[in-house]
């Protein structure tokens, strides 16, 4: 008996260590970026253009660029995803078709992000002739986040109790009336959560915009969706790998990383909070 107890103690300790390593990793990343990035950040960092070949100045264009790309991506992806999710949860019957669609969604989710970049390059940049631009990047990111939002929306729709649908149909509502009036209103918070997570994902991705939207250095802010942009994630990468003054660029990279990570975490936090609320309040 003692030996078995001992085994349990050792086993539990190993599990605790696993979690502790994960949490430690998270906090060390946050720690270094916050401590070293905070010193660089001031109002000017947010509001001014980069100067002196990226060794001075702010990162306004990168902030704006990331904003444009993420918003563009969600504007494209959200309607498509919600429509697809409505089909999957409300119309599809078990069978081969739905198996194939699911397989498609799952596999699209597993495609490496750099491959999306190649797709965007060949299709949007070259074939449609949009060039390296906000629109090319946003569409590429939009396709990338499609599966995330489809899944979240589908989950939100499936969480709406069957009894709502039955009550509505039994009152003589058509299927579409039932979806619009009895199902969608209850699923909206969940769909929103998915959309917010999608924005966070799009804002943090680098590889898909490498050849479709991002540029290291621009001297003026983009004025149309066909202009190329700077973006926070790409900016970090570029500061670390291009340019000639690493000593001056690394601090700016820290500041950029701090802003990017705060942005993404804030977005995630909002989504997690909404989801937590939904689960807790589950009023039905």
């Amino acid at each position, binding site marked *: 008996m003692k030996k078995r107890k001992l085994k349990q103690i050792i086993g539990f300790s190993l599990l605790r260590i696993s979690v502790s390593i994960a949490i430690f990793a998270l906090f060390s990343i946050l720690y270094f970026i916050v401590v070293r990035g905070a010193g660089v950040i001031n109002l000017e960092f947010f509001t001014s253009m980069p100067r002196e070949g990226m060794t001075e100045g702010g990162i306004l264009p990168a902030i704006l660029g990331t904003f444009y790309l993420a918003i563009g991506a969600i504007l494209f992806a959200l309607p498509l995803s919600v429509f697809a999710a409505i089909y999957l949860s409300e119309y599809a*019957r*078990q069978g081969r078709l739905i198996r194939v669609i699911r397989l498609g969604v799952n596999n699209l989710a597993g495609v490496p992000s750099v491959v999306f970049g190649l797709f965007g390059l060949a299709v949007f940049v070259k074939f449609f002739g949009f060039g390296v631009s906000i629109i090319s990047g946003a569409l590429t990111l939009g396709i990338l986040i499609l599966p995330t939002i489809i899944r979240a929306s589908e989950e939100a729709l499936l969480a709406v*109790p069957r*009894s*709502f*649908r*039955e*009550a*509505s*149909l*039994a*009152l*003589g*509502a*058509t299927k579409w*009336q039932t979806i619009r*009036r*009895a199902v969608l*209103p*209850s699923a909206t918070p969940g769909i929103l959560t998915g959309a917010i997570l999608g924005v966070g994902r799009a804002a943090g991705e680098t590889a898909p915009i490498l050849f479709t939207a991002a540029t290291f250095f621009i001297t003026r802010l983009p004025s149309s969706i066909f202009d190329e942009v700077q973006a926070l994630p790409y900016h970090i990468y570029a500061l670390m790998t291009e340019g000639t003054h690493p000593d001056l660029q690394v601090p700016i990279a820290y500041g950029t990383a701090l802003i990017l990570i705060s942005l993404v975490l804030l977005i995630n936090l909002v989504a997690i909070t909404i989801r937590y609320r939904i689960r807790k309040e589950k*009023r*039905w």
Partner: protein
Amino acid sequence: MVKRDKVVTKNLNLWFGDNHVLKDVDIGIEENKVTAVIGPSGCGKSTFLRCLNRMNDLIDTTRITGKVLFDGEDVYNNRMDVVDLRRRVGMVFQKPNPFPKSVFENVAYGLRIQGIRYGIHEKVEKALRSAVLWDEVKNRLNISALSLSGGQQQRLCIARALACEPEVILMDEPCSALDPTATAKIEELLFTLKERYTICIVTHNMQQAARVSDYAAFLLLGELVEFNDTNKIFTNPKDKRTEDYITGRFG
């Protein structure tokens, strides 16, 4: 006065996949009467009820043969408009299932989907009065339906069904989630409702069936064992199995 059957089933058979759930059910549900369906759990009572307004269509594996005649018209006929059928046949479910909307919007739901714009207020009030809920909610029509008590919620669901002015009301164990007081209220309600509506109610509670119904049908493993005046079923059942069931000698 001639008896008139509002809903008639003929040789009604239903399968869920390979599971033969209803077997040759022949029944006539008389107008302005309460017909109770009783039987042990899993015998197909709910399934039978859901055949009458084609709610079983929602289950992919359903297969049906035979006829369900509503005012003489086969509801499984291709020309039948399911949506219209369901408007004419109201349904109240086992567990109260109000929408997460206000009390008012719950009752108005059926009217709104029919595109009715005028007189909604009057109709909602009328339905709530018919369901004997008006006095309890008249001052708070805008609160969420989910904040009502279970019994109130169930009467709200009845009001919601009544607002559509159905001809038949199907009730699937409407009191099983309620306490005795709330149950008594709903039973009382049935007496007034049957003046205007034809009611078919599934219940597990023998006393309730005896109290509220004019006719009773006993289902066993998907077969209609006996169908007769409630009085006769409870005092003088013809079939041994019915007797065993209503006297509680049944598993």
